[in-house]
């Protein structure tokens, strides 16, 4: 009898122990790819740690934080006012960490004599209101604008539609491609093309132009002056105390120069220094 009790308590204890070194991350699909890189690298350094990551949307992640079903909630947006009200009502307190920035660069063919575009002009091009380059600037040729976009499954597409299009639909002739690489390839080949890509993917093969006069650089994104960029967050529950243990150590790793290097690899902009 005694033995069984000991055995059962041992089992319970060991489960607690195992759960203690498990990190559950839920939320935004935009943050997902970089969170996954961090998790892989972190697991390589700490083999005992189990990390589960689920990409299910920012709202789902924050809801999971409320229900204590996640240690970290990834989010591509700030808290909604309804979520803040809920926090006040429940007496909870979540703190945000800016882990990276999502910035969209506008790219054109190198031979096209254009260096700046406004957000309004982007809206006009992608909604089909403007169809030739001379309507943008009279010095440009009177040729058809060929706009490229990512597939509607992509997080970059989602953010572009939200920030530039303000929810307006893309014109039918906008070509949706399945990868950033395909987009760069086409803009490289087509003299009249324009496209948008994650800032981390900018290459010399195409020309990244300024938007509203602001250059797409890390400094301009971090300071908030570049118009098509947004911070990406990880929220943690600090109701009882500041994050500690594995949660704190994982965040430390994400914000370290090594972790920030990984951010660029998935096309985002680093929030802090890199290696």
């Amino acid at each position, binding site marked *: 009898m005694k033995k069984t009790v000991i055995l059962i308590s041992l089992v319970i204890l060991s489960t607690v122990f195992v759960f203690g070194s498990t990190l559950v991350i839920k939320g935004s*699909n935009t943050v997902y790819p970089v969170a996954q890189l961090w998790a892989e690298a972190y697991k390589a350094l700490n083999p005992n740690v189990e990390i589960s990551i689920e990409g299910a949307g920012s709202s789902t992640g924050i809801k999971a934080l409320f229900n204590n079903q996640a240690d970290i909630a990834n989010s591509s947006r700030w808290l909604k006012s309804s979520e803040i009200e809920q926090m006040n009502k429940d007496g909870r307190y979540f703190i945000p960490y800016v882990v990276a920035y999502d910035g969209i660069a506008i790219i054109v063919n190198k031979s096209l004599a254009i260096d700046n575009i406004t957000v309004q002009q982007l809206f006009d091009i992608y909604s089909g209101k403007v169809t030739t380059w001379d309507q943008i600037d009279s010095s440009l040729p009177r040729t*058809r604008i*060929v706009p490229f976009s990512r*597939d*509607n*499954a*992509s997080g970059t*597409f*989602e953010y572009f*539609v939200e920030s530039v299009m303000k*929810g307006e*639909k*893309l014109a*039918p*002739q*906008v*070509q*949706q*491609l*399945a990868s950033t690489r*395909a987009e760069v*390839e*086409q803009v490289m*080949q*087509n003299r*009249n*093309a324009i496209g948008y890509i994650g800032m981390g993917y900018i290459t010399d093969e195409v020309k990244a132009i300024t938007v509203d006069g602001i250059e797409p650089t890390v400094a301009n994104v971090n300071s908030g002056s570049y118009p098509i960029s947004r911070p990406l967050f990880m929220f943690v529950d600090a109701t009882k105390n500041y994050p500690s243990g594995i949660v704190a150590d994982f965040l430390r790793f994400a914000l370290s120069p090594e972790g920030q290097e990984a951010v660029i690899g998935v096309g985002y902009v680093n929030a802090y220094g890199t290696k």
Partner: protein
Amino acid sequence: MRRKRIELSARLLVSFAALLTSAIVFGIFFFLVSDGVRVFGEVSLKEFFLSARWYPTYEDAEFGILALLAGTLSVTALTLIIAIPLGFISAIFLSEFSSRKTHDGLKYVFELMAGIPSVVLGSFGLKYVSRWLMDYFPMQVWTGLNIVNASLMLSILAMPYFVTLMEDAIRAVPVDQKEASLALGANHTSTIFRVLLPQARSGILNAVILGTNRVIGETMVVLMVAGGATMIPTSIFDPVRPLTSAIAGEMGEVELRSAHYFALFMIGVVLLVISTVFTLVAMRLKRGGRK
């Protein structure tokens, strides 16, 4: 007694295999339809089939597949226009006019062609064919990813089917028929057109069915080079977004059991119906030939 038992178990095994295959086919169809029809809870039949506006991820989402359907049909039609005559001529050449050496050499080339992975063809179209099209037809081509590009790549994919199956069909005609025709004084050309081809008709149509279904269902190539624009094409140099590439491009991120999710399943049903109708029509033609 023992022999009988073996006979019986073999027969059972064979019929079980046949039943299983048809059960799987009907199972897939049932599963597609049962998920697909639920889209009509939120979208009317008329809008789904007659609207060209496909905006599945917006606040006020629209689910019209007409432009996607036009994409599939235009790419398939142009591919068949290119690949069937070429395949047909190659098959006649291979079976009737080539020496043993050229025959084996060409056959080897077609076998290699059949082995090219579609993603490789897609990359080739994206990187080279699109550039060539823009260089050679600068007036007509405004984007290198278009119906022509996709059809050229799909033709490479479908040609081996057409050639090898059609050649097999022509070769399957009994030699004495051909010899009889030649002995009666008909020349080689009229023997081919009057004797061999009518006899091989059913096999040739079979090749067309298999190859065409392969073209309709092909996903990777069209996802990469058809252009991805949800517009109804007015020229063969317009970009399109065929049904298959809509499924492949969007299924990965779609919210489970949402209207978008069911719409993608319904697109699967539409694809299945297109290839079934096509197969039935071709089989009709086949039977008509036998009478």
